[in-house]
């Protein structure tokens, strides 16, 4: 996928997340893109590692900065707790008319992810993202308990109860994503 096609996808994602009440800071975008790739099987080409606040892609962080340099996104400063909001600019809107096919192809997956996580804060997104990470990390690890234990092992500040809840939510979202795709 070309760089500007990705910009169109992220602009649409940022808009939809905001519509669903998201703060839409960089961390929110990181997690939303991870879920977009992992739940809806839309490959945007980003490799994620498990980092301080869950799955994180350095390439995505670089691209988001690059898009700001190109005027496709801007930062809107906001009071704490999460830092500035990423806002798509008019340039992003113009690109959307050029990349209509990409925009159309991603409309439903983006809507799905935005409605699933748009109202969630960074703490919840960290849990959900990590739950998906442990699920995809080893597909033979099927039981909720095993995956919750793994999540708790990787992120000890997430209790086993919270981890179990996050894994169950991810299972529901995966099922819903599969249903949408059919």
């Amino acid at each position, binding site marked *: 996928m070309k760089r500007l096609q990705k910009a169109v996808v992220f602009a649409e994602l940022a808009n939809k997340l905001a519509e669903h009440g998201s703060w839409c800071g960089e961390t929110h975008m990181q997690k939303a893109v991870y879920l977009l790739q992992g739940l809806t099987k839309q490959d945007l080409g980003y490799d994620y590692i498990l980092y301080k606040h869950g799955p994180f892609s*350095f390439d995505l*962080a670089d691209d988001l*900065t690059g898009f700001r340099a190109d005027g*496709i996104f801007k930062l809107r*400063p906001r009071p704490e707790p999460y830092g500035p909001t990423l806002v798509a600019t008019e*340039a992003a809107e113009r690109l959307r008319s050029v990349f*209509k096919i990409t925009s159309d192809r991603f409309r439903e997956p983006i809507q799905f992810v935005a409605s699933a996580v748009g109202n969630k804060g960074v703490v919840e997104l960290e849990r959900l993202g990590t739950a998906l990470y442990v699920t995809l990390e080893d597909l033979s690890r099927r039981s909720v308990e095993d995956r919750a234990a793994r999540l708790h092992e990787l992120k000890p500040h997430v209790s086993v109860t919270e981890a179990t809840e996050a894994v169950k939510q991810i299972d529901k979202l995966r099922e819903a994503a599969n249903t949408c795709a059919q």
Partner: protein
Amino acid sequence: MQEGGIQSAEALLLARYFMYSQVYFHPVRRIYDHHLKEFLEAWLSGGKFSTDLAEHLAVTDNEVTAAMLGAALDPTRRGHAHARRIVRRDHFKVLYSRNPQDVDVNPESGQAIFNAMSEQFGPELFHHDRYSQKGGSQDFPVQAKDGRIVSSMLLSEALQHLPLVSIDAVYVDPAKRDEVKAWLSSRRAEIIKPKEEAPA
């Protein structure tokens, strides 16, 4: 950081921006990087520095400089073209560089121009240099005078408007520059106009 230090942070970040935009990404420095990389790729065995420690350490600036001079003077040696450009200071020159009006139309205008030029005149005459600043943010927590923690971007107008480094330039063989420039000047607007996405 405390609020009293915000101007020092502004100064530091602005100084870094100027270092990048005026020094590290100066077009002549960048094009010499390109010629050097191309020369090394042609000259080094397998196009890369050896990963054997002794062999790696045996190649110093002296070996590279001597090889470059030798290659510059002898057209039969590997890497001659780029070595000659460095030694004779006959480096590629800027044909096109990022312009805000063009970026508004197409954020990848440099790529569009490079593609069109390469197709018309041959790719060996051109080099496309594209770089956008990676990561890093001017947003960090600051302790305000009343003890509250606030975003640096809320406290500082300067940080809100701190530019990001983005390089998008096309270089051309100086021998062809005038011809290519004349060809480009009447077609630039058409070339950079983004083409609507076609079905896969």
